């Protein structure tokens, strides 16, 4: 049998075998009943959601950018093809490495300069006198709990109050538990990295106490977030500070971090302000 004849036979047979689909509305109704039990898996950090050209106003006059005090790359008049947003580049880039390194050294350096080691022990009333530092490695798996509010009308574009719920597994049990991150981003061009800042309120419920603080960072051109979170302990962790450096790859709900638990309070200048009261569930 020739290919042509076999193709003709197959085409005809497939069409006779085709049946009318069930009522789509009824099928959707059955599906909707199952949705509440199906948690959406999402990217942890929101920049890739920001990064779609389709959600950005396609034509923003360059003059708006020129009038802003912060220099920014003008958005082209025509939308950037979505294929340019793909992750086909290598994950390593000098810019990313320099940015991440600079951020970590800046925060770490400021911490050391502001608070010499010999002064840390006595700086926090109630700190356990025999408390020691502990290096920590951790993995966080997060899902989107509450979608934040986007501001896409004019630069700087913003996302505020996006709530992420995470399960943190760490090498130290004191920082193993469930954490909540209330996330904000401000960006000048959501289709690119290296022009934004992100900050968050952070709480981690450990087995014998709570950590609360704030994080700061930025996204690089690959959509990778580099964030440092500094939190102070309460309960059994009173008098301790937990500092984490997190790198969050794009397109993933999981992130790895390195951290340090140490006695003492955060250095002056780091705003570990009281967190707002959590909203009622």
């Amino acid at each position, binding site marked *: 049998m020739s290919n042509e*004849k076999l193709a003709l036979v197959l085409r005809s047979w497939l069409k*006779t075998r085709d049946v009318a*689909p069930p009522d789509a509305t009824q*099928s959707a109704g059955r*599906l909707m009943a199952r949705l509440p039990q199906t948690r*959406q898996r999402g*990217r942890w950090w929101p920049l890739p959601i920001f990064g779609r050209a389709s959600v950005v106003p396609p034509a923003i006059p360059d003059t708006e950018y020129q009038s802003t005090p912060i220099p920014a790359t003008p958005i082209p008049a025509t939308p950037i093809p979505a294929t340019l947003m793909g992750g086909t580049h290598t994950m390593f880039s000098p810019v990313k490495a320099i940015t991440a390194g600079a951020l970590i050294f800046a925060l770490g350096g400021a911490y050391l300069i502001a608070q010499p080691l010999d002064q840390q022990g006595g700086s926090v009333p109630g700190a356990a006198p025999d408390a020691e530092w502990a290096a920590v490695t951790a993995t966080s798996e997060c899902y989107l709990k509450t979608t934040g509010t986007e501001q896409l009308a004019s630069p700087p574009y913003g996302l505020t109050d996006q709530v992420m719920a995470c399960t943190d597994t760490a090498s130290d049990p004191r920082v193993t538990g469930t954490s909540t991150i209330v996330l904000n981003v401000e960006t000048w061009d959501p289709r690119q990295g290296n022009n934004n800042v992100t900050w968050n309120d952070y709480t981690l419920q450990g087995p014998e106490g709570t950590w609360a603080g704030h994080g700061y960072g930025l996204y690089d051109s690959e959509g990778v977030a580099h964030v440092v979170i500094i939190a102070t302990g309460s309960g059994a962790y009173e008098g301790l500070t937990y500092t984490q450096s997190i790198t969050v790859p794009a397109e993933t709900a999981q992130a790895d971090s390195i951290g340090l638990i140490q006695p003492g309070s955060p250095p002056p200048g780091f705003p570990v302000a009281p967190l707002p009261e959590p909203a009622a569930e």
Partner: protein
Amino acid sequence: MDQDLVVRAQHGDQRAFESLTIACHPRLFRLAQGILGNPHLAEDATQQACLDIWRDIRRLRDPAKFEGWSYRILVHCCTREAKRRPKWLPEAEMQPADEPSVIDATDAILDRDQLERGFQRLPVDQRVVIVLHYLLDMTLEQVAETLDIPSGTVCSRLSRAMAAMRAALESDARPGVSTRVHGEVVR
């Protein structure tokens, strides 16, 4: 496909997702029915695919590519459905022939049962290519784009599938020759 519905579903809007489901269910079901040959299995696979779409829709980076992405999820669900089904059960449900087909006119030896048996012996990835190309009338380039695989892979899968179908039909057509269905020898 309304990209706005996709974006809203990515933001957790269940109403938007319901509208999206109603819009895409018929084409997903048609593909599933083509692959599995059974409307009940096809509906199960379509429902599961829609749930998986809801679960993972935030990972879809470009809403314009929703259609191909949803097809790929469905194919994955059909593969699982085909594996889950006991081997001794017939996979295909025969539909009544309510209109004459080219098959009847061209070759009396070839009947739908032979075709179904040959088709069900194919791996799912080869069935998908046949269904997309011959039932949904996609070009090979469109099949490649939909499945996100190289065109050469589509061609080789189609070639292998056609060879297997031809061999199956010719084997079945020979009198006295045993037929292998789902690994079981049937005489």
